[in-house]
């Protein structure tokens, strides 16, 4: 009977904050979909199964799988951590219920963390105690679960959900589908066939019949040795055969080595080809991310520089914040300087009078008229003060000239005080203007500064958000391990692998010729030996040897035929699934073709209607081909496939036209599938899914649909994933 997952629940597991009953997802036989935007707990959900099967969690920071205990602190919901006082503890776990046949099981894995220090994210702040795995069992008739105590039995319950050797076809995340079947590697397709067919029985049969043949040959030779009538020619023929066999083995080993070289080079070439196909998309993101990084840095720098120089506005004459609160300073100073000037000029006047009593009578303020007016008065021979004519040479005109030159004479005034500080005080008043003139507008200036800071901060936050979004998108199209490799090195390695393939291909051809010749010689020698067999050897030995030889040869051929048939069957199913997957796509109908390469590996190509190879297709298309083969492997299986498909973001590179086909196809192949996707998410839609999503969930095969959501715009410690059940 098929294993069907009934539910999964979380307790304070990453963003899934709360008790098991708060976070329960129910599933049914058929297709189950969880739609979530990036960051809304898709991969965390998948992590629950990693914990269940392997006691591991994928660390999203470095994309490395780590032991649950080692990164336990990261697993606990930040909100739960934050709400746990020092000295208290918090429980974190996952709970999965599944049924198979009449039995239903409940598996709980969990740990308890006790907070001992302030900083919630530090690993030193928590003591972790792993709880025993809890497994409970019931049949559908019994009302409640009974615990399973035996450790081995507990393990078996977990194994039975998806058998370990089948997990690679049933349980994968994003790009992992690429590594399930690697068509450049002979062992990969063989592994798939071996896991799902009875070819391994044929292989043991091949070994068995080979050993029969060797035994029969040894028995026959012993009889010949014992026979008195043996002659030198017979002995010699046997020696030659032994020599030939030795040679054959030597050349076969060499051939095998070149085949391995070829296979390795071919594998590298295929891997790099895959990288090429999405290098362009990755490159697009790289350019966008680089540009966005530059913007973030630029605005970030502007922002931190702005904050750093905030305090300099106290002293900058354009802002003059230091004057804040000194509104009265101008008036006070003015009052003082006026008083000072009165006394100052009084002294000056007195001094002048004592030097020149005629200066006693002043009708005009000191130092007036000013020098410009005086110059006009001299030129126009007219006194503007008393509005009378003053012809050149007259007493009045001479007085103008004297007044005009008084600045030169004023040096004589210097000693009317010991230190003349009029200039000092006057200078202060004039120079300090930028600082006391702006006092009234400082409050406004501070508010404007704050507004500018808010605007900068908002801009920076927005840019960072956009950057994170780009990085999340790029993450979905990454092939692990190739992130840092530049395209030039990919090109060089690609060319290198093709050259190595060519060189080993020549050697393989040469050695295949040699081994074929040696093999023929061995066969001919065997015939010769048969003719040289002395007549008095018991007939049974010879017959036995010939029978065993034929049997061994037939079994090898049978095995090859079964393998070839299986590959043909796979090709047939793969094409069937492939056509289903692409049926909503614009692609012209082509054909998936399996061919044997010199190394014996299976080459997997997409051929158009005219028989031409279609290459360089996008990553989504490549993955779709592989997925067709994964499903073909399952369909070609002689037994019914009894395990659910659990996949996280399998569609991210597919494109929407493939997505629809994918849900239909998977519903037909797997008894149950639980698919986590973001491609159907639409933030602005009332139901939070896009039009394609709405179309897909109407399908009969789709049984349950949830949409995950996280609270927007809150701090990490408040982040909680909630769900909406759509079907």
């Amino acid at each position: 009977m098929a294993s069907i997952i009934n539910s999964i629940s979380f307790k304070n597991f990453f963003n899934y904050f709360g008790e098991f009953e708060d976070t329960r997802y129910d599933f049914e036989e058929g297709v189950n979909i969880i739609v979530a935007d990036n960051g809304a707990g898709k991969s965390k959900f998948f992590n629950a199964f990693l914990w269940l099967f392997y006691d591991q969690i994928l660390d999203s920071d470095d994309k490395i799988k780590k032991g649950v205990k080692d990164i336990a602190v990261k697993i606990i919901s930040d909100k739960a951590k934050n709400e746990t006082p020092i000295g208290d503890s918090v429980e974190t776990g996952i709970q999965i219920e599944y049924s198979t046949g009449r039995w239903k099981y409940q598996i709980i894995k969990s740990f308890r963390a006790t907070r001992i220090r302030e900083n919630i994210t530090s690993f030193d702040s928590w003591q972790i105690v792993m709880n025993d795995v809890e497994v409970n069992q019931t049949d559908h008739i019994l009302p409640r679960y009974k615990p399973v105590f035996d450790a081995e039995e507990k393990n078996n319950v977990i194994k039975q959900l998806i058998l370990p050797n089948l997990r690679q076809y049933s349980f994968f995340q994003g790009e992992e589908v690429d590594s399930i079947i690697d068509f450049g590697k002979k062992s990969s397709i063989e592994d798939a066939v071996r896991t799902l067919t009875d070819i391994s029985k044929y292989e043991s049969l091949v070994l068995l019949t080979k050993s029969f043949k060797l035994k029969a040959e040894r028995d026959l030779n012993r009889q010949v040795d014992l026979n008195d009538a043996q002659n030198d020619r017979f002995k010699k023929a046997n020696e030659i055969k032994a020599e030939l066999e030795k040679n054959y083995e030597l050349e076969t080993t060499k051939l095998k080595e070149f085949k391995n070289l070829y296979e390795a080079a071919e594998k590298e070439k295929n891997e790099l080809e895959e990288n090429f196909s999405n290098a362009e998309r990755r490159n697009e993101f790289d350019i966008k991310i680089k540009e966005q990084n530059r913007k973030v840095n630029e605005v970030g720098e502007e922002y931190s520089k702005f904050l750093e120089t905030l305090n300099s506005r106290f002293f900058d004459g354009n802002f003059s914040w230091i004057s804040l609160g000194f509104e009265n300073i101008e008036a006070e100073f003015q009052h003082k300087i006026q008083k000072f000037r009165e006394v100052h000029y009084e002294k000056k006047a007195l001094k002048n009078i004592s030097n020149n009593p005629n200066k006693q009578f002043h009708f005009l303020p000191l130092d007036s008229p000013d020098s410009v007016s005086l110059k006009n008065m001299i030129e126009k021979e007219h006194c503007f003060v008393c509005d009378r004519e003053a012809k050149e040479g007259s007493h009045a005109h001479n007085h103008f000239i004297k007044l005009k030159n008084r600045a030169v004479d004023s040096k004589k005034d210097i000693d009317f005080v010991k230190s003349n500080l009029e200039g000092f005080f006057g200078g202060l008043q004039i120079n300090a203007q930028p600082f006391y003139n702006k006092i009234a507008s400082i409050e406004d200036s501070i508010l404007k500064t704050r507004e500018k800071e808010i605007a900068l901060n908002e801009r920076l936050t927005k840019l960072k958000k956009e950057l994170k979004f780009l990085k999340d998108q790029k993450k979905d199209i990454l092939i692990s391990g190739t992130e840092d490799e530049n395209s030039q090195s990919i090109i060089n390695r690609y060319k290198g692998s093709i050259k190595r393939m060519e060189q080993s291909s020549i050697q393989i051809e040469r050695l295949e010729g040699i081994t074929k010749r040696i093999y023929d010689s061995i066969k001919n020698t065997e015939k010769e030996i048969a003719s040289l067999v002395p007549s008095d050897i018991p007939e049974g030995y010879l017959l036995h040897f010939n029978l065993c030889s034929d049997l061994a040869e037939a079994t090898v051929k049978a095995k090859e035929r079964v393998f070839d048939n299986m590959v043909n069957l796979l090709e047939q199913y793969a094409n069937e699934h492939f056509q289903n997957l692409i049926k909503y796509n614009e692609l012209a109908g082509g054909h998936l073709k399996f061919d044997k390469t010199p190394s014996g590996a299976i080459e997997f190509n997409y051929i158009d209607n005219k028989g031409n190879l279609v290459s360089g297709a996008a990553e989504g298309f490549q993955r779709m081909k592989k997925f067709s083969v994964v499903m073909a492997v399952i369909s070609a299986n002689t037994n019914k496939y009894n395990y659910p498909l659990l996949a996280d973001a399998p569609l991210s590179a597919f494109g929407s036209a493939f997505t629809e086909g994918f849900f239909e196809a998977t519903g037909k192949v797997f008894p149950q599938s639980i698919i986590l996707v973001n491609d159907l998410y639409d933030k602005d839609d009332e139901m939070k899914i896009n039009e394609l999503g709405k179309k897909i969930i109407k399908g009969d095969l789709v049984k349950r649909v949830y949409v995950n959501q996280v609270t927007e715009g809150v701090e990490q410690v408040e982040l909680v994933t909630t769900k909406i059940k759509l079907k």
Partner: protein
Amino acid sequence: MTSQEFKNTILIKSPHYANSRIPLIQLLANKGSKKSEYSQFGPIYELYIYAFMLGIKKNLRLPLPPRSLTTEFAKIGTWKRDSSLVDFLLMIVFTRSEEIGFEWNDLEEMEDAELNSVISKIIVFIEEYANGGLEYLHGLLDKGELENSHYMFIDLYKENLQDTISKSVKQNRL
């Protein structure tokens, strides 16, 4: 003494600060680009002027310890060159002439020695109000009341005027 000579005599003076203020100055002025958890001024003179003005605003005048327990600080003339900031400071200083103990007009009649003595009093005035301001900041730091905000200095300066910027920042974020 001419006006220029008088001004120069003030500008070449170097005020002192108490040695006990050194940690505070290191914390709040970022001369060697050392980052602190608090908002910082750039050069030390900025903090010094700020402390002086704060002392004046809050009327905090505090004598310094004996000279041997103080540190000499940059000449006033080197504070914020190419700016009239020092003129503004002197404007404030000279409006407080009664408190310092001189009359503007009397200055004009003094011998150089007497003028120098007045200038010394002016420097002590600056030093003591700056010391008062620094003491105030020191007290807040010790009590843990220094707000860790970019607007810390403006808030301290604005106090009693209206809500502080830091508070409004917090409200904005809520």
